[in-house]
């Protein structure tokens, strides 16, 4: 009986290392994804090399130990030997691990240098981590937009939502506007943070890089294969840390160019509509668009916020109060809570007027105000 328990103990202690060996390869399985960039392939190979080195070392050490545990028991009549050292053996087991480490360090250094090479980019994207969404801009193409968690995930994740996450496609891993990149071309990502430190990570691309305010981190990648690749923020960045996914849509260069043309056309059309006479209808349409991409990460699409964490705008005293106070709050930010930052710095007067109008006339708010760009300008 006692022997049985002890055998059981050995099996239990060993199971973990066996389980790793059975690891599968597909993303979302047991193991790191092989990925779709040369970097990710190198990283995967490095990971597997390390895994096997560690497994073999672990297996050897555990084998010797288990041998002792089984055969050198007093219950089996073992008598303790007297030795307490063996210089040659100790030199050997200092030298061999050191040599193994050198053998691992050489390919690691090679991969590291390759990953940090900087070829001339075909397209550059500026990535800003922002509480709690990503902002992508293509400086050479003149395209810029926010990428937010999809509304259905947001709704389902809420406490007592009554919606099962299992019914939501790509729960917490889907966005309204993905990052579009061409395959087979050098892409440069310049990553920074607007407020706190975030980290941009898509496992299939093979790296993560922190988005740090005041720093611009560079990552150069080439994507091999068209497809949709998903990831999320990897550095604790506050209440919405678990809710800022990343979706990369990799398309052929031709499709990418088509997307650029189309996006620019759409942006131009939008710009034109924005130029029209300032009407309530225009302000509401434009305001909703801005609110959904910039404000909803905290205040939620239904304006109800999250009790105890993010204030509701629906029925809020500030939103339904005097206009001047509301404008000041949005343009200059909250005097007490840095998460409500001064949006006057990142939006123009028309955009601010639109979003203010939208907030004052949505949900159960019926102030009837049409905020004008001039009123915003006065508050600056």
């Amino acid at each position: 009986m006692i022997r049985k328990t002890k055998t059981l103990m050995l099996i239990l202690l060993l199971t973990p290392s066996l389980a790793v060996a059975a690891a599968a390869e597909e993303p979302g399985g047991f193991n790191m994804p092989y990925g779709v960039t040369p970097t990710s392939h190198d990283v995967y190979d490095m990971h597997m090399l390390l895994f096997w080195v560690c497994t073999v070392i672990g297996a050897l050490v555990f084998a010797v130990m288990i041998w002792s545990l089984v055969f050198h028991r007093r219950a089996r009549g073992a008598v303790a030997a007297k030795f307490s050292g063996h210089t040659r053996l100790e030199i050997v087991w200092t030298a061999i691990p050191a040599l193994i480490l050198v053998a691992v360090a050489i390919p690691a250094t090679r991969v590291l240098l390759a990953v940090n090479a900087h070829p001339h980019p075909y397209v550059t994207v500026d990535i800003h981590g922002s509480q709690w969404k990503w902002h992508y801009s293509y400086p050479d193409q003149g395209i810029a937009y926010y990428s937010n968690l999809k509304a259905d995930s947001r709704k389902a994740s809420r406490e007592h939502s009554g919606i099962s996450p299992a019914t939501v496609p790509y729960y917490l891993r889907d966005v309204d506007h993905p990052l579009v990149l061409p395959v087979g071309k050098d892409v440069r990502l310049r990553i920074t943070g607007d407020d706190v430190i975030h980290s941009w990570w898509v496992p299939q691309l093979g790296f993560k890089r922190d988005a740090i305010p005041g720093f611009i981190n560079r990552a150069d990648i080439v994507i091999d294969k068209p497809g949709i690749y998903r990831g999320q923020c990897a550095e604790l960045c506050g209440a919405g840390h678990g809710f800022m996914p990343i979706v990369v849509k990799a398309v052929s260069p031709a499709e990418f160019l088509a997307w650029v043309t189309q996006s620019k056309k759409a942006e131009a059309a939008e710009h034109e509509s924005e130029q029209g006479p300032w009407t309530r209808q225009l302000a509401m349409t434009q305001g909703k668009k801005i609110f959904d991409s910039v404000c909803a990460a905290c205040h939620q699409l239904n304006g109800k916020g999250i009790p105890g964490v993010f204030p509701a705008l629906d029925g809020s005293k500030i939103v339904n109060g005097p206009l001047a106070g509301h404008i000041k709050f949005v343009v200059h930010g909250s005097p007490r809570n840095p998460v409500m930052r001064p949006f006057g710095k990142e939006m123009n007067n028309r955009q601010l007027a639109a979003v203010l109008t939208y907030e004052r006339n949505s949900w159960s708010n019926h102030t009837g105000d049409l905020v004008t760009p001039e009123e915003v300008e006065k508050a600056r």
Partner: protein
Amino acid sequence: MSETAEAVMGGEGHAAPLHGWRRWLFTTNHKDIGTLYLVFSLIMLFAGGILAMIIRAELFEPGLQLVQPLFYNSLVTMHGLTMIFLAIMPALVGLANWQIPMMIGAPDMALPRINNWSFWLLPFAFVLMWAGFLTPQGAPNAGWTFYAPLSTTYAPPSMDFLIFAIHIMGISSIMGGINIIVTIFNLRAPGMKMIDMPLFVWTWLITAFLLVFAMPVLAGAATMVLFDRHFGTSFFNAAGGGDPVLFQHIFWFFGHPEVYIMILPAFGVISEIVPTFSRKPLFGRVSMIYAVGAIAFMSAMVWAHHMFAVGLPVSAQIFFMYTTMLIAVPTGIKVFNWVATMWRGALTFETPMLWAVSFIFLFTIGGLSGLMLADVPADYQYQDTYFVVAHLHYVLVTGSLFGIIGAVYYWLPKWTGHMYNDRISKWHFWLSVISVNVTFFPMHFAGLAGMPRRIPDYALQFADYNMVSSIGAFVFGLSQLLFVWVIIQAIRGGAPAGERPWDGAKGLEWTLSSPPPHHSFPTPPSDELVHREGPHGYE
């Protein structure tokens, strides 16, 4: 003989022994203070454990069921801080207090009043740290690493409580470290050479130097955060010309020695237990001492391996990759030597040995995943995922905590004078060792599959791992109640332990009665006794 000597010690400026609460508040006795440390850390283990249970309950399935995201961040933060600063570290100091004077043949610690103060600071640090839960904006929520600017501009007011709690705990640790250094250097039995000191004493000596070296750095980082928050400085604020990454450099310059502060004394414990139950001298004990020294020295040169994703220069990444890999060599030596100690021994598996053997297995798994994390390109993927969570819990729970529990089971008969309940202690072991693996092993997979740390809700492909982890965690948490039961039973009574309850045990502590006299060695043990109980006593 010992009674008269004690009377002399008691008469020289010592007040009559106090009773009731005043005995514990005013005590300058190393055993009483050791007990206070150990009981306090056990309570903190449950406090931090309850936070972990809430975390695991929230992560049991996708969606938010129990807590709001911001409160979840507070749970993660407070769990880490409580376990590190209020559970593991005080427990190790408690072991040092009880054992070091007995193991080196001293009457008490060298600085008894400082000893008292070091302990009594801790409950205040606890109150200050946890008071944040009562504030309207909640407890600190920037992670136990409290990275700026999340801890400066964006943190709730309770961050200031945390900063002062860190200062208080730092003072406590530094004084504790100094006390241990002074005690070991000055109060050793005359016949005990430095090189012949027990491994537990050696590991603690080196740890104490690390404490005195590292804790002021943490205090500095915390003070700079305080100044950024309230006094208009911009140490970590890029908008003011500061550098958010500087915080991480300073923090990890403390933080990496800190992880060795938490593991080295556990190495010492294992180096005491394994020879006892193998009935064989520790293999290569001098190289073990050098290995600990090398680990401690190198621990101050590896800090940036926590920061491979921040965009350091490639040359820096290579440097820290090499130094981190190098630290695996002395760590490997330790494991090999423990295995060689068991080789051709006469092994028995009493409860302390079970914990020690599982420590060697599971710490090795944590060490090997650490080796994988050292590799920069691979770390671009591992960093900030559950793979790291798995790694750090393998070295901290199945490493430090298992070492501490093993030590308690090893020395509890000495401390209480009673043998504990063998059957329950074995149940405690088996339930713990199975459930701890059920909890933490799947986290490797969750991390490799792409799950980041510190998120309150997750995508569906991580659901299975999390459910398994949560079940394991609940069993592990509940199993620890058995530990409390065993300890309370042993304090209240049981079969007399005798001087030397373990037949293979060597060391001066086993020459004292169980429980030992108030002042362990009022007169130094004879050279002959020191020799017989030392490393050369086997011949």
